[in-house]
């Protein structure tokens, strides 16, 4: 009993600390990556005892600054909801990680440990629910501030997130139909099979359109640049205009946590999760008939590493997209969402269904 508790708590801590640290590092990566892309150098002055470490201390400096700023609540704002909103936003962004598997079941000290906080058989629905509830943070922040600009930002945010939530659902449905499960661990296991004996049956291979649609809708969901109308950092300033101090910091962190969440979801659903191509329980087994035997421990390590690298790659890709594309206009955003991406995802669903029916 106690051992189970310790194991579960360890998993929760590993995921929570991992995600929060990755989100914090993403703030540094965003600065550095955008700088390198634009032939600049980026933040490199923050130092401790003269050590600069490529500006990594900037993250600490930012955090310190956020914590020491005045925590201001407007007089006419609804105090309780105003304080509540950033916590809601961050909570619902973080809770999604509970069902994302970061490794296979490993045997450690005679115990079977599932490298996933909780293996829900409705894991996909759980993530949908968490992502939908994330809208509350945005809407409540806009509403409770009692500021017209914040209110408009909140409204824009909610309508944008509603529109793209539907596409996310429809884009994932194809994957659910192919792997016939809603548990993310089962979906990842299903992606370990091979197509025609050599091609890994990753979601991207069987659902390329679904993958791209999911990525587009996911970026819209994170409310970052090509779709950053609710925030509009550079001019209108959206729903968090009345926030300061760490409450604002929490909203900013939520953006990055959502980026990590989308990266983790893309990895899990479309790029094989923790799967390494041709790696099975007892080692590599290449399609040519060559096999390399490696121990259980290394297999588990490779799988967790592969998951980490894939998530990191997609974080990088999302940042690349964020620093490449200009923002959509609001009518373009809605047209893209409702007239292009949504019908395409439905079409994708129909085609997938027809193909599955034909193959049976």
């Amino acid at each position, binding site marked *: 009993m106690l051992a189970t508790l310790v194991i579960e708590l360890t998993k929760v801590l590993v995921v929570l600390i991992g995600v929060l640290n990755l989100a914090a590092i993403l703030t540094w990566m965003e600065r550095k*990556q955008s*700088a*390198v*892309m*634009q*032939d*600049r*150098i980026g933040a490199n002055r923050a130092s401790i005892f003269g050590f600069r470490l490529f500006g990594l201390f900037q993250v600490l400096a930012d955090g310190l600054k956020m914590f020491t700023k005045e925590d201001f609540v407007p007089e006419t704002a609804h105090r309780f909801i105003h304080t509540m909103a950033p916590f809601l936003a961050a909570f619902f962004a973080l809770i999604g990680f509970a069902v994302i598997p970061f490794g296979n079941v490993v045997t450690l000290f005679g115990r079977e440990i599932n490298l996933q906080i909780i293996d829900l058989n409705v894991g996909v629905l759980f993530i949908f629910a968490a992502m939908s509830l994330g809208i509350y943070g945005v809407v409540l922040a806009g509403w409770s501030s009692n500021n017209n600009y914040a209110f408009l930002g909140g409204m824009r945010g909610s309508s944008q997130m509603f529109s793209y939530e539907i596409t996310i659902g429809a884009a994932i449905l194809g994957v659910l139909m192919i792997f016939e499960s809603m548990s993310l661990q089962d979906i990842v296991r299903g992606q370990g099979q091979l197509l025609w004996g050599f091609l890994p049956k990753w979601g991207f291979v069987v659902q390329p359109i679904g993958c*791209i649609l999911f990525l587009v809708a996911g970026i819209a969901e994170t409310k970052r640049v090509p779709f950053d109308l609710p925030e509009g950092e550079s001019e209108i300033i959206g729903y968090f205009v009345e926030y300061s101090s760490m409450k604002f910091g929490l909203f900013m962190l939520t953006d990055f946590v959502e980026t990590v969440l989308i990266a983790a979801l893309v990895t899990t659903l479309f790029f094989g999760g923790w799967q390494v191509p041709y790696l099975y329980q007892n080692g590599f087994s290449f399609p040519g008939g060559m096999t390399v035997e490696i121990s259980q421990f290394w297999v588990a390590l490779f799988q967790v590493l592969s998951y980490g690298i894939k998530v990191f790659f997609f974080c990088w890709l999302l940042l*690349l*997209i964020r*620093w*490449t*594309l200009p923002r959509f206009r609001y009518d373009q955003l809605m047209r893209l969402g409702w007239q292009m991406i949504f019908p395409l995802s439905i079409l994708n669903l129909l085609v997938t269904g027809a193909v599955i029916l034909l193959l049976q």
Partner: protein
Amino acid sequence: MERRELTFVERFYLVEVFKGLWLTGRHFFLNLSKHVKTQLGLHTLEKGAVTFQYPEERRPFSPRYRSRHRLTQREDGSPRCVACMMCETACPARCIYIVAGEHPDPNVEKYPIRFDIDLGVCIFCGFCVEACPEDAIRMDTGIVEIAAYSRKEMIYHIEDLLQ
């Protein structure tokens, strides 16, 4: 302005997105490899960024660049200026103030007792340099960090300008 009709591929947007990502991604990897090479000390000529890390590293100025003024000196260290007031007359911002005095050397008529330039008013047009018949004032110091806590400190006197 004449607007070109977008082709189908361009309106489809996805291809153009990938083109854009390819461009920025190429910049990212090229610059990153240059940064890494510089860090390892392999490739010091090609820099991965156009940035000048200002206080340590200064952007080279053009030789014609007009920076803070200086008064040139004779061989004995006294100012070359003969207080002819040409620069004061030419100055469109009227930031130069000269008080002339009689020079002990009979070959030189006058010398400046005071020569003040209010850099808070100066527009750095360089007319004073062009007007000077004696090559006594130049704007070639390369000093651009002219800042002070008060307007009074922005007025540079003859002893500051002679250095």
